[in-house]
């Protein structure tokens, strides 16, 4: 409620006073008594008591002493704003801690008042100011959000509109290149190929725009699975090596020592590498070098640290903080083709969605190092939400789904479509809190295996098995392009000796991994 509404209606302003000193509480009460405006006061001596009261009823303002028996200093403000972000806070402070009061305002309080210098007029003035300031800040945030939402909707709309004519250009050029409009001269072929290449590049830029728009509304999706980072780095080198070579830049990798598998979305990881290496290419002159490194993160061994280091021009220290901002463009790019300035923003968003961090170090004139961390794969962490109920490990069965290409005529693209479809079917058969599609896919020659961990005994898992079989059988596209088989693999029972839950979980995961390896070898 805004201050003017409260004041005009002459409804009582509801105030929660959180202060452990009876004298100070009294001081507040006496100061407000003199006012012509009615105040409805409620008191709490401890923070926990205050938070309880906030839960039951939301006051118009909180008068908050920072040093309470159960909470001290800035933490008090933090805990109150976490609980009730919509209620303005006026900090009551002793005469000697202006510094702490200012910190409190930075954390989320609206204003502060020194208890020793408090009279009725000063207190009501500060309270009015706090309520009004809170309201103005809220309106500001709201309007900023509306603007951002609008911008993103616009961006998403524009990108879709751009795509359609581009698809048309692409389609017709392909028609001509395939000779469907008559024979081509060598020159015509060369020019058409150039159109096709550039249309492809434009399409990539539009994808960036779409990604950035979804990133801003928190809709950039990732599908993490168990990934060997080395494979993805290899793919990136394969894709970017030729481009680096034409620029006269040496692209090298250094992965040492062998790094554990990651819990990450492989396509997104590739996108991060491509964006970072392309960014490095923009600022590195011929004769320079770009190195892709991977190692276990020294700060936390459950993370892997990746770095892309270049011998380029480096970044001005004052611009270091800006490089991950949307639409930021460094001015001294080596190439005229600068892109949209979205690549690094997308990288940051993707890394953070994975639970990692991204940062940059740079030496002007010597080069930059972009680093990011991604979590390593941990099976116990993934299976525990399914397997642990009320602190105890549940019985589980492993269901293996094997799919294989139906015939030689199944192209790679159709196979990709089919396996994604199979995956979607399997996911639709599962119960969300009982079954889990494990992040292992064994890609073997012309066939592939997926594994579902079913939190059920053998008969229970057999029902799931039948459901998957039936759905695969009924799906028209699957039937024609692949053959499939579904089977249950019983996991050995729990060891009799009493172990900690954590050890049990690790034990089960070990058995799981063994069962999966065995299934792949058969």
């Amino acid at each position, binding site marked *: 409620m805004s201050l003017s509404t409260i004041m005009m209606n002459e409804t009582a302003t509801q105030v929660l006073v959180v202060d452990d000193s009876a004298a100070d509480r009294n001081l507040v009460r006496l100061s407000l008594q003199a006012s012509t405006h009615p105040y409805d006061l409620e008191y709490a001596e401890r923070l926990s008591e205050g938070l309880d009261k906030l839960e039951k009823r939301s006051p118009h303002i909180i008068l908050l002493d920072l040093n309470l028996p159960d909470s001290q200093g800035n933490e008090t403000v933090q805990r109150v704003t976490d609980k009730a972000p919509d209620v303005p806070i006026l900090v009551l402070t002793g005469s000697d801690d202006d510094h702490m009061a200012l910190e409190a305002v930075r954390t989320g309080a609206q204003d502060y008042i020194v208890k020793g210098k408090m009279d009725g007029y000063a207190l009501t003035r500060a309270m009015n100011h706090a309520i009004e300031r809170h309201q103005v800040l809220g309106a500001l945030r709201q309007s900023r959000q509306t603007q951002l939402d609008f911008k993103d909707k616009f961006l998403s709309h524009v990108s*879709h509109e751009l*795509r*359609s*004519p*581009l*698809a*048309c250009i*692409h*389609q*017709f050029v*392909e*028609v001509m290149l*395939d000779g*469907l*409009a008559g024979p081509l001269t060598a020159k015509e072929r060369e020019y058409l190929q150039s159109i096709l290449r550039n249309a492809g590049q434009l*399409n990539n830029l539009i994808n960036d725009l779409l990604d950035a728009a979804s990133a801003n509304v928190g809709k950039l*999706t990732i*599908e993490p699975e168990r990934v060997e980072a080395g494979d993805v780095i290899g793919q990136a080198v394969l894709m970017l090596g030729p481009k680096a070579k034409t620029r006269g830049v040496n692209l090298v990798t250094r992965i040492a020592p062998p790094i554990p598998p990651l819990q990450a979305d492989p396509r997104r990881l590739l996108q991060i590498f491509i964006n970072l290496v392309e960014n490095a290419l923009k600022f590195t002159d011929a004769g320079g070098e770009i190195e892709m490194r991977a190692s276990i993160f020294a700060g936390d061994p459950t993370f892997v640290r990746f770095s892309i280091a270049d011998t380029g021009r480096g970044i001005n220290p004052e611009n270091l903080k800006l490089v991950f901002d949307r639409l930021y463009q460094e001015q001294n790019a080596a190439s005229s083709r600068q892109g949209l300035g979205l690549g690094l923003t997308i990288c940051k968003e993707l890394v953070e969605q994975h639970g990692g961090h991204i940062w940059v170090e740079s030496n002007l004139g010597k080069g930059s190092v972009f680093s990011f961390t991604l979590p390593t794969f941990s099976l116990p962490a993934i299976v525990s939400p399914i397997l642990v109920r009320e602190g105890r490990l549940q019985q589980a069965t492993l269901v293996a789904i094997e799919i294989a290409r139906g015939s030689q*005529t199944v*192209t790679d*693209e*159709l196979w990709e*479509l089919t396996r994604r*479809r199979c995956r*979607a079917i399997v996911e*639709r058969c599962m119960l969300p809190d009982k079954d889990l599609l494990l992040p292992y896919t064994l890609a073997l020659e012309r066939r592939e295996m997926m594994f579902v961990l079913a939190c059920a005994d053998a008969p229970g898992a057999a*029902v799931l098995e*039948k*459901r998957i*079989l*039936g*759905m695969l*059988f*009924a799906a*028209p*596209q699957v*039937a*024609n*392009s692949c053959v499939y088989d579904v089977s249950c693999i019983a996991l050995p029972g729990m060891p009799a000796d009493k172990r900690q839950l954590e050890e049990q979980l690790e034990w089960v995961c070990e058995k799981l991994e063994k069962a999966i390896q065995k299934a792949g070898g058969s």
Partner: protein
Amino acid sequence: MNLSKVLIVDDNIDLAQALEVRLCANDYQTLVARDGSSAVALALDEMPFAILLDLHLPDEDGLAVMQRFRSFPELSSVQIIVVSADCSPVTQHKALEQGAHAFLEKPVNHHLLLHTLRDIQMRSTDPEHLKATTHTYPL
């Protein structure tokens, strides 16, 4: 049902034409509709065996058009291939779940398109395939 006729539903006439050229070169007959309503009417008149359906249509959402196709029993064996520039997992999932035979991203990969069409033709001519698709597994 005509096993060489394909209906293309797209409001971008140029794009529809590009697809027509590609399909005609591979011995298909093509029909083009620019919006959902005329697509349904044309499908009922001409009985194509497959429909290439854009999701972004001027009169209504492509998925709603798909539902309308599905409401005519005489069109029940016509396969719908969704063609869209929006290839987000959510959209793909929705389209497949509502009964699309396949989902192709724009610009359309013509190898994949031709393979998918041949797959549908084969299924319609081979009674064994037909049996397989209508069978439901006993639970």
